[in-house]
């Protein structure tokens, strides 16, 4: 088995660990969302939904901060992964890619290495945001037994890996295909905005207009956030004036959707890297 991907992974992680400012800034954004948006919205949700509906007795009622911590985790992974694709673009721009592709290492190893480093970064960020959400009063894993917390954490890690892998394949593909830094920036911005807002990150997707709801159905971010809520809050809860019944079926459909997303992106990205000519 070729182990060239370990070299790529090792290099990415060295550079990541060294860029302390980058680590700080990449964590600052989600924290700012939680602090500014989370806290100010938390003080308003009661006002919005006073008397609109009543929490069903079998559902746990959770605060808005609890609700959007999951959304912010999804958003952070989305942003981190999509912008990571630019690393390959820089490798191409500075000619480093040429030094790699004249080696006998299969090109797919480049893809695997960068994807694994992207996943690692996302897992670190997810952990930190979860802790921070907790500090800000999000009721995560509330009322869980220790064994439940452990299985939930494992589930959270597995789904995060699946989601960030799909995103890393997608962003690497863009990084390899687009040679202009400004253009790829614009593409990323164009992708992140609709993916973020046509999802259940900040509000329930069920209340979205029809076309946005359709977008939500093919949006991997929405499926991922569902799974995060399943693991951190529970299968049946009430927030933002709405009763969420994700259940095991919801978790399973998230798994299938994210699996298909990762697989399709993997196949496409392998195709792109094998056929690219202008290193």
């Amino acid at each position, binding site marked *: 088995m070729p182990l060239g991907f370990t070299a790529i992974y090792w290099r990415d992680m060295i550079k990541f660990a060294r860029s302390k400012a980058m680590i700080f800034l990449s964590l600052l954004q989600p924290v700012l969302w939680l602090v500014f948006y989370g806290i100010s919205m938390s003080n308003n949700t009661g006002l919005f939904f006073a008397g609109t509906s009543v929490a069903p007795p079998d559902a746990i009622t959770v605060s808005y901060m609890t609700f959007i911590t999951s959304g912010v985790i999804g958003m952070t992974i989305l942003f981190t992964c999509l912008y990571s694709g630019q690393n390959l673009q820089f490798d191409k721009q500075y000619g*480093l890619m040429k030094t790699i592709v*004249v*080696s006998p290492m299969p090109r797919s190893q480049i893809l695997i290495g960068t994807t694994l480093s992207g996943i690692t970064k996302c897992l670190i960020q997810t952990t930190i945001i979860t802790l921070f959400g907790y500090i800000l009063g999000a009721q995560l894993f509330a009322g869980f037994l220790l064994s439940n917390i452990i299985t939930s954490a494992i589930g959270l890690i597995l789904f995060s890996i699946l989601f960030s892998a799909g995103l890393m394949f997608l962003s690497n593909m863009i990084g390899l295909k687009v040679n202009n830094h400004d253009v790829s920036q614009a593409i990323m911005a164009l992708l992140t905005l609709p993916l973020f807002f046509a999802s259940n990150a900040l509000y329930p997707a069920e209340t979205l207009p029809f076309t946005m709801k359709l977008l939500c159905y093919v949006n991997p971010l929405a499926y991922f956030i569902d799974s995060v809520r399943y693991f951190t809050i529970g299968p049946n809860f009430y927030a933002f004036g709405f009763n969420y019944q994700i259940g095991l079926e919801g978790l399973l459909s998230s798994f299938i959707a994210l699996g298909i997303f990762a697989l399709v992106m993997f196949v496409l990205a392998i195709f792109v890297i094998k056929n690219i000519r202008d290193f």
Partner: protein
Amino acid sequence: MKDAIINVEGLSHSYGKTVAVDNIYFHVEEGQIFSFLGPNGAGKTTTINLLITLLRIQKGQITISGVNVAKNPDAVRRNIGVVFQDHRLDRDLTIWETLEFHGKIHSLPKETRRQRITELLNIVELGDKRNAFIKNLSGGMKRSVEIARGLLVHPKVLFLDEPTIGLDTKARQRIWHYIKQINREENVTVFLTTHYMDEADQYSHEICIIDKGKIMANGSSSSLKNAIGKDIYHIKTTDDLKASQILANLPEISHVEKNSNGLLLYLKNNELSASKLVKSLTIHQIKLGNLNLLKPTLDDVFIYYTGRKIDSTVDA
């Protein structure tokens, strides 16, 4: 004759309608330093990119160490080391990390890898700088790191695309010292492109002149110079101005050039004897102060084959 380690037959390459390489044939013998000499845009980099499997071969055939490049690029990649024209290094890694990274990419086992890196850093005199960041190195040091990187896997052929471009004289000499050393001690065949005449002349066993995608001449430096065969007289007289007018009319002389030290007489063939030269001047009461017979330089060879000086096209 030794075996050819690189064999190129009928190689052509074009970008759209622009023909970069036009039906070239050449071979490189094992253990040699082979210079591919030509002005910018002559097709040097295209040829090197075809040799190192970066470009897909459109027409013709290349074998390196007996392996067909088009059919088995991965096997070729195991046999070659490459140093590219511009610095291609990760600024944010140290020297050691850069070499470790490439050793890992080539799946060198840990012990072999570390031993080899230490060995190569000693050759290029960077052993004490192993933890320095690439971004803090001089151009010459960066080049040395790249040469070490190219040699990590004990390649059979080391390709160097303009290895000394942009370096000062001292750094150039040092780089050449390393190249010669590894050529001699590790028996690595060196294939390099350059537009520095003096370097090609001084260091390579074999020179191939390429211009406008075509091979103009091929051979050792001395054989190339002998082949054009025309000598040059360098003279100093009591009246250079008058002398140049008189000598320009001699049938054996193709043209006369004046420089600060006297006159350069380019001969059409080598049949003008010194005595005849002296005689034709003394008739006009001009005394000869100095007379030197110059052998042609590689510059002259280049002008002979391409009709122009290499330097005039360097920055074009």
